[in-house]
């Protein structure tokens, strides 16, 4: 029975758990429940990935209606891979939240926080697994609404503005996607992504379809914070509660990147988007500007969360760059970076949240002398920071390796050089923080004895991610296998049959 419904469970579990968590009411109950559910979903995601790697595609017809009439969940290596990262991060962040949230959110809202987290997780899983363009929009809105809620839960009033901006931008993005889907539907008569891919007829209604493509790309770009549409991200990440930032930074934008990959490769076809529309050049230019502009901005911020937020925008640039290289290796580099960046940023934001937990501020001055007072937290920050820089034996190096390989493969020597040049800026912005932590003395005014290590429930998930950073930096077989077979699937998906369409007719 579980086997049969495996594709639906990662969506359904958190979806159903959300109202139950609300009913449970007590903060600790709903925390334990949410964590348990998320862990189960993670387990299922793992099995799904296994299954997808072994069998290729798993199609699940919701309501028993065959696609394109019903809604199809479609699992392949690509989305199972991202789903695994999302569900693992969700579980770890939930573990971490218990103490972190107690400090940052008032007690009466804890249950609402966990409910919102579950909703967000359900939405993200839905976006990943669905094979239906409109269904994707619905899940996008579920996750977005939950995200706005979580961002606004912080006690800092600026979080309200950040959430409102995010809401306006996010809704514009979603509406753009809605327009794009409408145009596609209009010229094909279907909403199923695979069916869309088969029925898109450029010769017949090219202008409508290209406009649809443009609107979807712009809408998704807002959601994934592609430069210059990233303006909502730094403030949202800075003012949201730490646990929320850790979750969003490592999952939400990644899922949006996946959506972009999905539309480019599955729906429109890489030949059309990159070949005849030339979008690879646009994406590449934007990605490179994002890498440098935002890395630079990260080096001049004083709030560490803002530093990391800008770094996120830059890192998204790397993912998009991978996609824009139009090769299986490039796509694979992008996918691997989705997974790896989740590990790094999750750990980094958790460490920053731990600092906030003890010190009450995340300004760079608050990090002074923490190397002594919070050695474990800062060690975690250091390792994850090195990973962002791309030091060997961390996941960051693996990502960078594949990205540069892909660029060289395409004879894009300058791009390869720029990728490596971008990591130099990472040296600066991570280095500044580390220097403050290890080589500057704590100002005397603050009572230094009070600052000690955070509770183990915050340290454990943080270190789990740090160890994952090292583990997947050394043993790359899982990530490489998943990402490369995912990339291959995406590149040759057109030959795949559409669900069980044949029997249905």
């Amino acid at each position, binding site marked *: 029975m579980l086997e049969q419904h495996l594709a639906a469970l990662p969506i359904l579990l958190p979806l159903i758990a959300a109202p139950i968590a609300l009913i449970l009411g007590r903060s600790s109950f709903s925390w334990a429940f949410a964590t348990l559910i998320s862990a189960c979903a993670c387990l299922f995601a793992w099995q799904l990935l296994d299954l997808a790697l072994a069998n290729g595609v798993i199609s699940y017809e919701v309501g028993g209606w065959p696609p394109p009439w019903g809604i199809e969940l479609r699992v392949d290596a690509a989305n199972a891979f991202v789903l695994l990262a999302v569900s693992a991060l969700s579980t770890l962040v939930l573990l971490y939240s218990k103490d972190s949230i107690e400090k940052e959110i008032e007690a009466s809202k804890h249950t609402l926080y966990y409910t919102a987290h579950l909703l967000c997780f359900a939405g993200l899983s839905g976006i990943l697994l669905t094979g239906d363009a409109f269904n994707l929009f619905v899940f996008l809105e579920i996750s977005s609404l939950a995200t706005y809620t979580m961002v606004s839960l912080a006690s800092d009033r600026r979080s309200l503005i950040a959430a409102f901006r995010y809401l306006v931008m996010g809704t514009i993005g979603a509406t753009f996607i809605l327009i794009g889907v409408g145009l596609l539907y209009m010229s094909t008569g279907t909403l199923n992504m695979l069916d869309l891919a088969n029925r898109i007829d450029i010769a017949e209604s090219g202008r409508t379809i290209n406009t649809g493509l443009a609107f979807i790309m712009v809408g998704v770009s807002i959601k994934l914070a592609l430069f210059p549409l990233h303006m909502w991200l730094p403030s949202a990440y800075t003012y949201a509660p730490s646990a929320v930032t850790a979750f969003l930074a490592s999952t939400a934008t990644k899922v949006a990147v996946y959506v972009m990959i999905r539309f480019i490769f599955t729906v429109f076809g890489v030949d059309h988007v990159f070949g005849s529309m030339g979008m690879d050049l646009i994406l590449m230019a934007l990605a490179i500007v994002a890498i440098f502009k935002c890395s630079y901005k990260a080096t001049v911020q004083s709030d560490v969360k803002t530093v990391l937020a800008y770094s996120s925008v830059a890192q998204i640039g790397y993912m998009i760059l991978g996609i824009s290289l139009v090769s299986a290796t490039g796509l694979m580099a992008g996918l691997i970076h989705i997974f790896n960046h989740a590990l790094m940023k999750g750990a980094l934001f958790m460490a920053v949240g731990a600092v906030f937990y003890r010190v009450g501020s995340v300004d760079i001055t608050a990090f002074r002398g923490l190397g002594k007072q919070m050695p474990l937290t800062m060690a975690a920050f250091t390792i994850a920071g090195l990973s962002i820089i791309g030091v060997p034996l961390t996941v960051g190096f693996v990502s960078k390796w594949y990205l540069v*390989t892909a660029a060289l493969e395409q004879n894009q020597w300058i791009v390869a050089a720029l990728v490596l040049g971008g990591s130099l800026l990472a*040296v600066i912005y991570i280095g500044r923080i580390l220097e403050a932590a290890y080589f500057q003395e704590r100002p005397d005014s603050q009572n230094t004895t009070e600052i000690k290590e955070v509770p183990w429930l915050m340290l454990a998930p943080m270190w789990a991610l740090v160890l994952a950073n090292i583990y997947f930096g050394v*043993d790359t077989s899982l990530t490489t296998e998943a990402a490369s077979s995912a990339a291959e699937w995406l590149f040759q998906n057109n030959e795949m049959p559409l669900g069980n369409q044949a029997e249905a007719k």
Partner: protein
Amino acid sequence: MNLWQGIEPSQLISLSILLPFVGALLVIATGKSPNLREAVTLITAIVLFTVVLAIYDYISQGGEIGLELIELFPGLSISFEVEPLGVLFALVASFLWIVTSVYAIGYMRGHNELNQTRFFCCFALAISSVMAICFSGNLLTLFIFYEVLTLSTYPLVTHAGNDAAKKGGRIYLGILLSTSIAFLLFAVMATYSLTGTLDFRAGGIFDDSHNKIVLSVLLVLFCYGIGKAAIMPFHRWLPAAMVAPTPVSALLHAVAVVKAGVFSILKVMIYIFGLDELKDLATTDIMLYIGVATILLSSCIAMTKDNLKARLAYSTVSQLSYIVVGALLASSIASAGAALHIATHAVGKITLFFCAGAIMVASHKKNISEMVGLGRQMPITMAAFAIGAISIIGLPPMAGTWSKWYLTIGALEADKLIVVAALMISSLLNIAYLLPIPVKAFFNTTTGEAEPWSWSETREAPLPMLIALSVTSLCCLVLFFYPQPLIDLVNMIPGVSTQGEG
């Protein structure tokens, strides 16, 4: 070495890397009791040396050792392979680690340094990565441990924790990390995408089918990417790193770290480009002359420095370029000279640094101008200094003679008279900035000017330090009279020979 006979040869490699690593962990574990901690350090160092000797034994009998660890990327693993050049470097590094450990114990105690556990731990980690660099079987492995070495020595450079140390550390990490990421990694990956392999192969992995211009660019990238070789203008980190405690400067910034740099360059030239291919590249000569310029310029800078460690640092920059030049001459004799210079310069320079540290501990003097007449009070130290200086200059009967000899022959053979001239001038400059120090210390007691300090309180440095510096200065002598094992080892490197091409 009977000690390790029962062990599978390939395990010797992992043993040589793991030993210092385990040592580092043990140092942390025994951090509470200094005696135990230092005993652990010493024992680890000695055991490591025996392991390296066993490897040497095995290799000199013509055995081959290889070890494949983990497949990092499909078709690319972290792999190790023993070859003569690596053994040479490993021998030098592991032997000098023993000596330095003895020295460091005296120094750290005599100087009452803080955070000694962190010091010894990072030290052992650095040695671990040096061993891995020595035995690396491909460029990827080399690159990875090159970075690990940079990171593990960073806490050592900033050990003092004051502003100067932080500034020095920032320059150190900044230059080494940026050059390695921006140039070296790029060069490594470009090599991979061009040839599909990163293995070190006798005769190189590039051949005539590759675009010469691309290879020329790669050569420049490699030379500057390996920032540890301190070719101008990326040499600033080396003087900056002198803020570290003297044992660190001695072992790491005179031996392990900088030698890891030039070792990597030699390795790239011999096993990636291949000496034959190297001759045809347009940029070989350019880099060669930059190396020559580095030799001369940094010697000149050294003369202006009054701080003893700074002077030694610039001397190191200059001596490193000897090796780079040797490699870039692309002749088998010059390469042999370069390889030998790794060993001979190591013993010479470490002696000088030991002396500098001994002087600092004993008299708290850092500047050369204040060392006049010191020879009376610290005769052993200053005698050792003289021996080391002569070795660096390259005069018999000291070890440095051999390497300079082969380098010069190599330059002559390659018809690079400018290089020959530069080597000569540089030797003169060496004399000018090194010899006055012991000379003044011993003979120039009556300057007439009243000295604001008195030597009456100054005694020789603590015994461990004296032992250490005596041992290394002795080595300078011994290696002059018995260079044969090293020369044999060097001759085993494919394409490299002290006999010349014929």
